[in-house]
């Protein structure tokens, strides 16, 4: 892991008198999908902001590989009513190059037909795909997605996560995913980090799902669903082959600790 994209080293951050992050460490590597899970208000978005350089830790440090290109898909993006903006113009802001590149990016996320539409008129799901297209347009080394499945139906979610896997395989970029909905995400990820102001446990999806810290945080309800999708996960790998190192799949490797 010498070529880590971003390393968060014992970072702590207090916002408005509340400790949002306490002693959090995280390493994001190329070609690896890391999923950040945790309940609402656990500090997931804040940790993503540290990774992106949108916030600075009070203690500890965040090291980004020099020359790192970031792609970011925020949770929400509202364009003011007073600003007339087409999808094409919106993408142009990220990459002013050829129209063809913007069309390709939209094609990729399945919304090529929206290119001339006003951003303001997009539905939640359409906006998510446009945001993803904007992030992909920059050919990022690291893609950070904050709750990418919001407003997307189940079939759409499946397609979205499938696309992320594809992007990772093709470009070798690292991906940091934030979710509070584990079911679909777990099956598509190499590493899961369970966050509740601090890292409760981390490791492969299988290992984390068996961790008592995880079970306490999410209950056993999620477990039944998880089993189903874990099966799907294996199936995916049979099809695509073991394309990405696989060190994080090599058995129940995980780190964790117990809550008192």
């Amino acid at each position, binding site marked *: 892991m010498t070529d880590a994209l971003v390393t968060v080293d014992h970072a702590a951050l207090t916002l408005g008198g509340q400790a949002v992050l306490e002693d959090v460490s995280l390493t994001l590597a190329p070609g690896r999908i890391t999923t950040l899970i945790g309940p609402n208000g656990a500090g997931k978005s804040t940790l993503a902001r540290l990774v992106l350089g949108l916030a600075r830790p009070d203690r500890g440090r965040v090291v980004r590989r020099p020359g790192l290109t970031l792609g970011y898909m925020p949770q929400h993006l509202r364009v003011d009513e007073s600003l*007339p903006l087409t999808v094409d113009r919106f993408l142009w802001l990220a990459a002013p190059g050829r129209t063809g590149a913007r069309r390709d990016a939209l094609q990729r996320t399945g919304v090529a037909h929206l290119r001339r539409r006003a951003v303001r008129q997009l539905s939640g799901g359409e906006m998510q795909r446009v945001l993803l297209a904007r992030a992909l347009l920059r050919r990022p080394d690291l893609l950070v997605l904050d709750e990418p499945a919001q407003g997307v139906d189940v079939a759409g979610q499946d397609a979205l996560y499938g696309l992320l896997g594809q992007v990772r395989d093709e470009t070798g970029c690292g991906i940091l995913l934030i979710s509070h909905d584990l079911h679909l995400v777990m099956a598509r990820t190499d590493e899961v980090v369970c966050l509740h102001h601090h890292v409760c446990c981390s490791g492969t999806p299988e290992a984390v799902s068996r961790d008592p810290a995880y079970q306490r945080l999410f209950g056993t309800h999620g477990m039944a669903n998880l089993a189903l999708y874990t099966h799907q996960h294996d199936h995916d790998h049979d099809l695509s082959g073991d394309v990405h190192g696989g060190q994080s799949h090599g058995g129940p490797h995980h780190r964790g600790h117990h809550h008192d």
Partner: protein
Amino acid sequence: MIELLAPALLAGLAVAVVAGPMGAFVVWRRMAFFGDTMANSALLGAALALALQVNLYLAVSAACLTVAVVLVGLQRQRQIADDTLLGIVAHITLALGVIALSLQDSVQVDLFAYLFGDLLAVGWSDVLALWAGAVLILALLVWQWRPLLSITVNEDLARVEGVAVTRTRLLLMLLLALLITGAIRTVGVLLITSLLVMPAAGGRRLAHTPEQMALFASLIGLAAVTLGLTLSWYANTPVGPSIVVTAALLFGLTLLRRPAS
């Protein structure tokens, strides 16, 4: 008539052409009250220029910019809401400006001209200065258009994509300060906000892209200045307010049209 009106017309057009795109940013970023506050502080700058015997334009730009930067700093605190803060600062600067101007007993100061403009009093040297300023502002806008637009749409995305957000925001303040400086001799500090907001609001009704909106705003502003000056000439009404009323009428006309997307 034309020799008399030419400098006034050219000076007004210089302000209007820049007020188009700048007004678009004011509308997009909901900075109308902010612009108003900056404009009020221009009066303080004018008083300062008289007291210290320095160049009017220089002192006014400096005062506007200082107030803008202080405001941005103050907006970081969370005790006082943004619009409350602006309401306080706007009227403190206005009151201090009027007091400071009234203390200049050595010079006869036409307060009314600063507040509501005196386009008919501008000379050719003013026209030259205003157009130089206009060209400078437009050039900077074109050069920095993408970062300016990017931070307006979403600052987080802009920052992740490598835009120097703070520097770009400062540039926008600087441009606004320069424009307000141009306004002090032409449409007046109390009326400049309307020349920023109304053409842009009208342009919004007609435009599909940000660039179109800026362009239409400029055109509406140019028309408002030309027609307003004509109105003032024939009806013998004050110039600045005539321009504002014309701009309002033109905005009213755009309301008749079904809005663009």
